[in-house]
C-alpha cells in the first residue's frame, strides 16, 4: 500500500514558496520593527525575490514535476518545465525590479503607506503569479490566479485617504471578480463534460465528449478564456487599465503592466495550448480577433492622450500596454493554426521578456521624473536630456524598443518573431493589422522620445536619483543593451522544447 503522504519535490516548488514565506516573514517582522527601521523590510523583500529568482537556476533542466497523481506519474499539478521557468523568471525578475522601485516610493511616501502590508501583498501576489505557470490543473490555476490578483486589488487601493486610489481599486476589484466568476463557470462546464481537472487529461477527454455536450464544452472553453483575457487586459476587458494605473502607486502600475500580463497570457497558453488543443478552431479565431482588437484599441487610445493632461505619461503607458498585450496574443492565436505550437508560444515568451525589461525600465524613469513633477505629464519630460542626459537617453532607448525601431534592436527582433509566427501560421491579415499598429505606436512613442531632446522650457534643475531607482534603471538598460547585441538570449525560447 502506498503512503498517503505525498512526497513533495521541494526544490521544484521553491521559487514561489520562498516568495510567499518571505512575504509572511516580512508581515510578522513589521510588528517588531520600529518606525525608523522600516527600510529593512524592503531590503528583505528585495533579497527574498532575488533569492527565489536564483532558485530557478538548479531547475534549468526543466524536467521536474510534483504533486502527481498516485499511479499516474505523468499527471501532475505542478510542473517546472521550460515554459514554467521562463514565465517564473519573468514574474520574479519583474517583481524584483518593482520592489526596487517600491523601496524609493515607500521612502518618499514618508510612512503614508503601510510598509509591512505593502511588502506582504507584493510578495504574495508575486508568489501567486509564479505559481500560475506551473499549475497543470484547473483548480490550482484558478487558485493561483486569485492569489496573484487579490493582493493586487489591495495594492492598487493602498494609498490611504486617496479617493482616486480607492476608486481605482474598487473598479479593478469589481471587474476582476466578475471575470473570475465567469472563468469559474467555464471551468465547471469543462469539468462537467470531461470529468477531470488535469489539463493533460482534459486534452484527451474533451475529444471524446458526448455529442450532446458539445455546446457545453465549447461554452466552457470560451468562458474560461475570459478570466485570463481580463488579466492580460485584452479588449473588451481593458477598460479598467488606465484608471487603475493612474490611481495605483507607480510601482504597482508597473507591476500590473508586466507581471499582471504575464499571469494572464500564461494562463491563456495553458488553457488553450495545453488543455484544449483539439478546440483550436474555437479559440484560435477568437484569440486572433481579440489580438487585432486589443492592439488597435490600445494604440489608438495611447495616440489620443494629450501630453498636458495630468498623469498623461502613466496613461500613455497604460494604453500602450494594452496595445502590447495585443502583440502578445498574436503568437498564441497563431499556435492554433500552426503545426508547431511550441514555436509560436516561444515567440510570445520572447516578446514578453523583452517587453518586461523595457517597460519596467520606462516605468523606472517615469518614477524618477515623478519625483520632480508629481503630476507626471508627458510635457514634463520636455528637455529631460538637458537635465539628466543619461536617463533621457535610456528612456528614449526603452521607448524605441517598445516601438520596435533601431537602436532598440531587441524590440525590433521581438516584433519580427511575432510577425513570423503570424506569417508562418498563415494569419496574413493579422500580420497586416499588426503592421499598421506598429506604425500607429511609433507615432506616440517617437513623439515622446523627441520631446526628451527638445530645449527645456525652464532652467533645468538637478536632482539626485536615489540608489534603488538608479539600480532598477541601470539593470533594465543593461538588459536592453545586452539583448540588443545578442537577441538570441531570449529568442532561443522560440526553438526550445517548452512543455
Amino acid at each position: 500500500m502506498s503512503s498517503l503522504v505525498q512526497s513533495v519535490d521541494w526544490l521544484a516548488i521553491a521559487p514561489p514558496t520562498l516568495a510567499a514565506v518571505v512575504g509572511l516573514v516580512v508581515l510578522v517582522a513589521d510588528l517588531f520593527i520600529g518606525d525608523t527601521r522600516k527600510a529593512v523590510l524592503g531590503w528583505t523583500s528585495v533579497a527574498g525575490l532575488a533569492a527565489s529568482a536564483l532558485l530557478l537556476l538548479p531547475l534549468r533542466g526543466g524536467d521536474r514535476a510534483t504533486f502527481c497523481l498516485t499511479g499516474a506519474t505523468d499527471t501532475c499539478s505542478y510542473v517546472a518545465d521550460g515554459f514554467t521557468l521562463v514565465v517564473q523568471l519573468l514574474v520574479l525578475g519583474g517583481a524584483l525590479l518593482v520592489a526596487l522601485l517600491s523601496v524609493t516610493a515607500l521612502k518618499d511616501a514618508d510612512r503614508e503607506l503601510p510598509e509591512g502590508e505593502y511588502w506582504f501583498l507584493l510578495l504574495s501576489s508575486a508568489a501567486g503569479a509564479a505559481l500560475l505557470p506551473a499549475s497543470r490543473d484547473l483548480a490550482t490555476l484558478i487558485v493561483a490566479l486569485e492569489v496573484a490578483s487579490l493582493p493586487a486589488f489591495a495594492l492598487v487601493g493602498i494609498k490611504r485617504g486617496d479617493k482616486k486610489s480607492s476608486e481605482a481599486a474598487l473598479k479593478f476589484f469589481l471587474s476582476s471578480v466578475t471575470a473570475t466568476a465567469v472563468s469559474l463557470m467555464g471551468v465547471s462546464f469543462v469539468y462537467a463534460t470531461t470529468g477531470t481537472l488535469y489539463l493533460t487529461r482534459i486534452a484527451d477527454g474533451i475529444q471524446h465528449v458526448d455529442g450532446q455536450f458539445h455546446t457545453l464544452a465549447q461554452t466552457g472553453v470560451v468562458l474560461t478564456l475570459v478570466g485570463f483575457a481580463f488579466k492580460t487586459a485584452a479588449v473588451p476587458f481593458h477598460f479598467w487599465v488606465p484608471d487603475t494605473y493612474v490611481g495605483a502607486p507607480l510601482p504597482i502600475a508597473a507591476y500590473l503592466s508586466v507581471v499582471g500580463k504575464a499571469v494572464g497570457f500564461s494562463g491563456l497558453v495553458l488553457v488553450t495550448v495545453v488543455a484544449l488543443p483539439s478546440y483550436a478552431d474555437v479559440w484560435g479565431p477568437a484569440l486572433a480577433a481579440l489580438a487585432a482588437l486589443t492592439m488597435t484599441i490600445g494604440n489608438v487610445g495611447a495616440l489620443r492622450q494629450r501630453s498636458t493632461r495630468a498623469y498623461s505619461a502613466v496613461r500613455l503607458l497604460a494604453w500602450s500596454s494594452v496595445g502590447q498585450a495585443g502583440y502578445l496574443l498574436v503568437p498564441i492565436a497563431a499556435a492554433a493554426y500552426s503545426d508547431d505550437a511550441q514555436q509560436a508560444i516561444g515567440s510570445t515568451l520572447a516578446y514578453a521578456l523583452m517587453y518586461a525589461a523595457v517597460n519596467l525600465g520606462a516605468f523606472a524613469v517615469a518614477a524618477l521624473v515623478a519625483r520632480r513633477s508629481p503630476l507626471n505629464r508627458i510635457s514634463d519630460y520636455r528637455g529631460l536630456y538637458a537635465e539628466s542626459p543619461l536617463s533621457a537617453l535610456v528612456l528614449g532607448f526603452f521607448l524605441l524598443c517598445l516601438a520596435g525601431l533601431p537602436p532598440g534592436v531587441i524590440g525590433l527582433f521581438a516584433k519580427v518573431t511575432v510577425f513570423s509566427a503570424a506569417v508562418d501560421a498563415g494569419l496574413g491579415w493579422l500580420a497586416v493589422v499588426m503592421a499598421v499598429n506598429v506604425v500607429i505606436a511609433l507615432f506616440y512613442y517617437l513623439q515622446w522620445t523627441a520631446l526628451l531632446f527638445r530645449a527645456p522650457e525652464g532652467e533645468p534643475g538637478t536632482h539626485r536619483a536615489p540608489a534603488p531607482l538608479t539600480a532598477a534603471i541601470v539593470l533594465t538598460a543593461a538588459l536592453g543593451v545586452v539583448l540588443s547585441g545578442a537577441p538570441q538570449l531570449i529568442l532561443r525560447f522560440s526553438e526550445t522544447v517548452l512543455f
Partner: protein
Amino acid sequence: MIDISESVMQILLALIVVGPLIGAAAALLPAPPGLKGKSPEQAVLRHGVTVTGVVLIAAIVLALGFDHDHPSKMQATTDISWIPALDVRIHLGVDGISLPLLVLTALLTFLCALYSYFKMPAGPTPKAFVALLLVLESGTLATFAVLDLLLFFLAFETVLVPMYFLIARWGGAQRQAAAWKFILFTLLGSVVMLLGLLLIGIKAGTFDMVALATDNGRSLSTSVQVTAVLAIGIGLAVKTPMWPLHSWLPDAHTAAPTVGSVLLAGVMLKMGTYGFVRILLPVTPDGFRTFAPYLAAFAVVGIIYGSLACLALAKRGAKGDLKRLIAYSSVGHMGFVLLGISTMDATGVNGALFANIAHGLITGLLFFLVGALKDRTGTTDLDTLAEESGAALYGKAPRLGGLLAFAAVASLGLPGLAGFWGEMLAMFGAFEPAAGLNRSAYLTFMTIAAFGTLLTAAYMLIVVRRVCMGATPRETPELLDVQTYEFAAWTPLVALTVVAGLWPRALLGLTDPAVQQLLAGGTR
C-alpha cells in the same frame, strides 16, 4: 586592382559598416584630452570629418582591392551566425552591384561632414548632429553590404530615426510635419516589406540572400512570389519613391537641412532601388514578372508627373521652391531607374544601376548648390530669387552660377555627363525587355519616357535661365562666390559626374557581370 588578402578585405568591410556606429557613440562622449580643439562644437564636427574620412578611405581601399575581373563574385564576405532562433546571420559581402553604392555613400557622407564642419546648419548641438549623421551612414552602408534579408530590414530601419531627427531638428520651415510624414510613410512601407521578407524566409527556409538568389525562386511557388513581391515592392517603392507613393519626398527635401537633402537624395533613395535589384529580381523572378509591367507603368507616370510638377514649379509666379523642384525631379529620375529595373533585362538593369549612381552624384551636387544659394540669399523661392528679370547668378557669383548650370545640364541628361548613360540604357532596355514581358507595352513606356526627357530638359533650362541669367542691376550687392571649403566638397562630385559620363565602362564593367549573374540565377 591591388592585391589585398581576403581577411583584410573582410575587416575593411566590417569596419565600413560598424565604424560609423562606434564613431556615433564616441561623438556623444566628451572629447579626450589632446583632441579638444578650439571648442567642443569644433571638436565634435572634426570628429565627424575624421570618422567619415576613415570610412571613405576604407571604402576606397576596398574598391581597389576588389577583384575587378570577377565582379559577379561576392567578395570580402563574412558569415557569422547571430540569432540562430530566427536564422539571422551576419552575412556581409560586396559585388559589382553594391560596391559603387557603398563608395558613393561613403563619399557623400564624408562630403556632408566636411561641409558641415565649415557650415553647421542652424539647430541644437552639433554633438547630436554628428552622432545622427554617423548612425545614418552606418545604416545606409549596412543596407548595401548585408546579405541577409532580416539584417537588410534592420539596416533599412536604422536610417529612419536619425533622418527623422535631422529633419525635425535642423530643418527649415514646416520641418515637424515633413519629418513625421517621412518617417510614417517609410515605416508603413518597411513593415509591410518585413511581412514579405518573412514570407520568403519562411517558405524558402532561409533568409540568406545569396542562397535565395542562387535558388532563383525555384523553392517558392508563384503565388507566394506574387504576394511577397507585392509586399516587399510596396516597401521599396515608398523608399524609392515611386509615384504615387512619393508624396513624402518633396516635403522632406524642402524641410531638410542641406546635408539631409544631399544624403536623402544621394543615397537613401537608392536603398529602395537596390532592394529591387538585390532581392526581388533574383529571389522572386516569377512574382516580379507579374508586376513588372505595372511597375514600368507607374515608373513612366512618375517620370511625366515629376517633370510636369517641376515645370509648374519653375513657372513665373508659381512661388516654386527650388528644393521642392529638385525633389520632384528626383521622382522623375527614379522613374527611369524603376523603368530600367522593370525590364528585367541586363541592359535595362545596368542602366538603372548607372542612373542610380548618376542621380546620387548630380542631385547631391544640386542640393549642395541650392543650399549654398539659400545661405547667401536666405531663400530658395524661385520667384523671390529671380524677381522680374532673373537672379543673374552668372553676374553676381559666376562660379556658383556656372556650377549650378553644370549640375542642371548634367541632370537633364546631356551626353558626355553621368546623367545620360543611365537613362539612355534604361530606355534601351525597355526597347527590348526580357522574354515573357509584353514588348509593345514597353515600347509605349519607352516612348513616354523619352518624352519625359524632353520635359526634363525644358524645366532644367528654365531654372538655369531664371536663376543664372538675367540683368545685373548696378546697386545689388555681389553674392559671395564659391568658398574653398565648398570647392572641396563639390569638386569630387563634379569630377565624378564628368568621369562617369566620359568613361561609363568604369561603372558598367563592374555592374554588368553581376547583373548577368543575378538575372541568370544569383550571385556566387
